[in-house]
């Protein structure tokens, strides 16, 4: 009798405790400093998509090995026609959005059409003439006026991911902006602004990504994204074990985290660079000799030291993580833009910049050369190197004054070419970004004007073949280096830290996108 009672007690205990344990969701807690303004990328103007990336699913994605190769994600396959004017996507039959609505070629076409009318960046889809839905709505043909070779960043990110336009129309853009319906691995459960966002698994999610093992719904139940604006607090939460992953670890915390055996830190160079831009429409920057002297006065190794090794020196205009990167051009830049203060002084002297009053500062035609360098107060790296650059330039006789503003205001000044010297840059996987930086097709910050460069940059965006495209951009880069259209300084790294109990996390080396398809937690 006693045994029976004991067995009954054990059975009841198990009956109540085991389901309780099983009900505990596998929750990944993710921390970041930046909170998005809204989640519908088709309406967004910001650049913070780390969270919304969990909700969206691009048609294709960059391969892990090269930015020149795209692999299927939502689409089962894609192809360019021989002439590059037709881009075809094949979609899986019967696929659905997270809410169960059909996600076929008609839905993708509707999403692209919405993007072109809703987004402030409709040109992202290029000169699209028409879209044809074929094969029982499993194929989408996109016909272009010119081959859209520049579109890989859009196609392989949330920008090109399909959104459920039916729901957008039904609830309106305002509600859809805060809670969009797409087909990514997660669905928004709740968003407490200023605190956290709770995402739960999308049971309808399927993928064709070749580099993930689990092609179905993710293994974890939910992701909680916590927005912690103060870097000190963010790192404290990670070290205390309250966060599983931190995206965008501040560089000042990298060394201490690397010494923690329970934390893994991944360092990935970004697909872009920071450069010294100048207004070439304005003296003395309209003088090539002066720009060459400026370039020769800059010692990037010292800048890297000042930034505690969290950046890599940059000498070209296409970084290693970008499409069409060319190591030979990098080497050419290293040669042409090498640090050589003696050469800088000589160039200045030959060009008529002389120190006539013996104060160590050069003058041109008896007048002092006055240069203002804009530094962004909200960019720790710029704040750190501002005075170092000032000292480097002073060493060759160029005097600059430093003025500090918010980064967003500096972009405003750059766009209006209301500046002398500024540190600015770009992050974009495709070299087409150079068209917007060095020609009047976009905010040509330098006011740079070289017909050959403009021709090459326009040509590069229409050549689909990777090798031919690289050759075009290499030629353009060499011209930009020769003209010293800007002075590339460094490429920043993105740091992502995760607790070692997070297994199976794939961090894309090119885009820094986090794939959690295979993630399990072994806390």
């Amino acid at each position: 009798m006693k045994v029976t009672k004991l067995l009954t007690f054990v059975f009841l205990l198990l009956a109540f405790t085991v389901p309780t344990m099983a009900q505990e969701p596998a929750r990944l807690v993710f921390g970041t400093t930046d909170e998005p303004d809204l989640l519908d990328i088709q309406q967004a103007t910001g650049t913070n998509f780390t969270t919304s990336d969990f909700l969206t699913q691009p048609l294709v994605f960059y391969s892990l090995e090269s930015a020149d190769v795209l692999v299927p994600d939502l689409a089962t396959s894609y192809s360019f026609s021989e002439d590059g004017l037709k881009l075809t996507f094949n979609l899986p039959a019967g696929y659905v959005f997270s809410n169960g609505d059909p996600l076929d070629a008609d839905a993708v076409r509707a999403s692209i059409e919405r993007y072109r009318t809703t987004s402030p960046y409709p040109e992202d889809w290029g000169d699209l003439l028409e879209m044809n839905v074929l094969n029982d709505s499993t194929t989408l043909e996109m016909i272009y006026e010119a081959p859209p070779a520049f579109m890989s960043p859009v196609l392989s990110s949330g920008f090109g991911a399909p959104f459920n336009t039916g729901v957008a129309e039904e609830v309106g853009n305002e509600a859809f902006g805060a809670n969009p319906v797409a087909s990514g691995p997660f669905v928004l459960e709740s968003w407490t602004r200023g605190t956290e966002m709770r995402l739960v698994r999308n049971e309808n999610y399927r993928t064709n990504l070749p580099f993930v093992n689990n092609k179905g719904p993710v293994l974890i139940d939910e992701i909680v994204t916590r927005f912690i604006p103060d870097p000190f607090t963010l790192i404290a939460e990670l070290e205390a074990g309250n966060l599983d992953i931190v995206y965008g670890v501040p560089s000042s915390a990298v060394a201490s985290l690397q010494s923690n055996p329970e934390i893994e830190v991944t360092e990935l160079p970004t697909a872009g660079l920071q450069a010294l831009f100048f207004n070439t429409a304005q003296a003395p920057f309209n003088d090539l000799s002066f720009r060459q002297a400026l370039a020769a006065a800059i010692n990037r190794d010292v800048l890297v030291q000042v930034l505690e090794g969290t950046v890599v020196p940059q000498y070209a205009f296409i970084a290693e993580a970008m499409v069409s990167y060319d190591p030979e051009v990098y080497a050419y830049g290293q040669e042409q833009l090498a640090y050589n203060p003696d050469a800088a002084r000589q160039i200045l002297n030959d060009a008529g910049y002389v120190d006539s009053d013996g104060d160590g500062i050069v003058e041109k035609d008896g007048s002092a050369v006055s240069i203002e360098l804009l530094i962004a107060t909200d960019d720790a790296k710029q704040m750190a190197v501002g005075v170092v650059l000032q000292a480097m330039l002073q060493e060759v006789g160029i005097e600059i004054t430093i003025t500090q503003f918010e980064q967003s205001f500096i972009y405003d000044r750059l766009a209006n070419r209301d500046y002398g010297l500024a540190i600015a840059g770009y992050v974009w996987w495709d070299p087409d970004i150079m068209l917007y930086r060095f020609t009047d097709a976009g905010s040509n910050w330098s006011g740079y004007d070289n017909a050959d460069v403009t021709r090459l940059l326009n040509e590069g965006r229409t050549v689909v073949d990777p090798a031919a495209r690289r050759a075009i951009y290499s030629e353009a880069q060499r011209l930009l280096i020769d003209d010293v259209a800007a002075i590339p300084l460094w490429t920043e790294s993105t740091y992502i830290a995760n607790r070692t109990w997070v297994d199976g996390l794939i961090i894309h080396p090119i885009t820094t996108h986090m794939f959690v398809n295979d993630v399990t937690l072994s806390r």
Partner: protein
Amino acid sequence: MTKYLLRRFLLSIPTLVGVTLLVFLILFLSPGDPAQMILGPRGTPEQVEALRQQLGLDRPVFEQYARWLGGVLAGNLGQSISARQPASTLIAAQMPYTLALALGAIVLIVVFAIPIGVFSAVRRNSLADRGLSAASMFLYSLPDFWLAIMLMLVFAIQLRWLPISGAASWQAVVLPALALGLPHVGTVSRLMRAEMIDVLGEPYIRTAYAKGMTQFGVNYVHALRNALSPIIVYIFLTIPWLLGGAVIVETIFAYPGIGRLMFQSILSRDLPVVQGILLLISTSTVIFNLLGDFVTAQLDPRIRY
């Protein structure tokens, strides 16, 4: 009294309008084009111009202000430029957190600062008074960011008694409220001590003793009640500051609130949200000022309006 309060409230309306106009002008004159800032480096001149038109930023400043004011009178604070949500929705979502934080700080001030001030005044120049005065000065002098980090290091990271950050539970309010309230505990306790010392020197206190009242009765019935008036006004005027001025504490503890929302909105030049929050803070300043007057009059029958 009611008539007085109503008159004061009506007279404050031009002040509210003036404050919002001033802030509107300051933000308008501050460097940077909101449209360019929103679009960032990707924005081409054409896109910037299109967004300026869409947001009405191409209209004259006074027309923009008049539109906003007209909307407010119709109960509409406008649409957030960056979040594309009604500004009132964004502000309302942050209000409960801010109120909880402000309430925590006020409770801290009332529970600790007033007894400390009274005790110091009653035991004037004693060792305990000198110790408490030094502690009050110390608290008053502490920068809030330093205090916040120290509280976090000790109570959240080392002792693990409280959460490091966030707003997931009521415990998460404790450290931000301490960081926000403790410097005020220093200020109010010093103020309370000074007021009590003044009152304890009044002739009616001697009379109270002469009538045979106990020291406790004199201190806490007669003296405290009369010394409280300026403290109450101070505390009421602190509330609007607590509503919008906790930016640093909220940022360090990743605690949501009106202060952080305003800071982010200023950075992104989100005028409707900034204006909405300022209107809220200005209005609450006027209301709490009036409430302070009202409570003071109830405590001190000599005060008549």
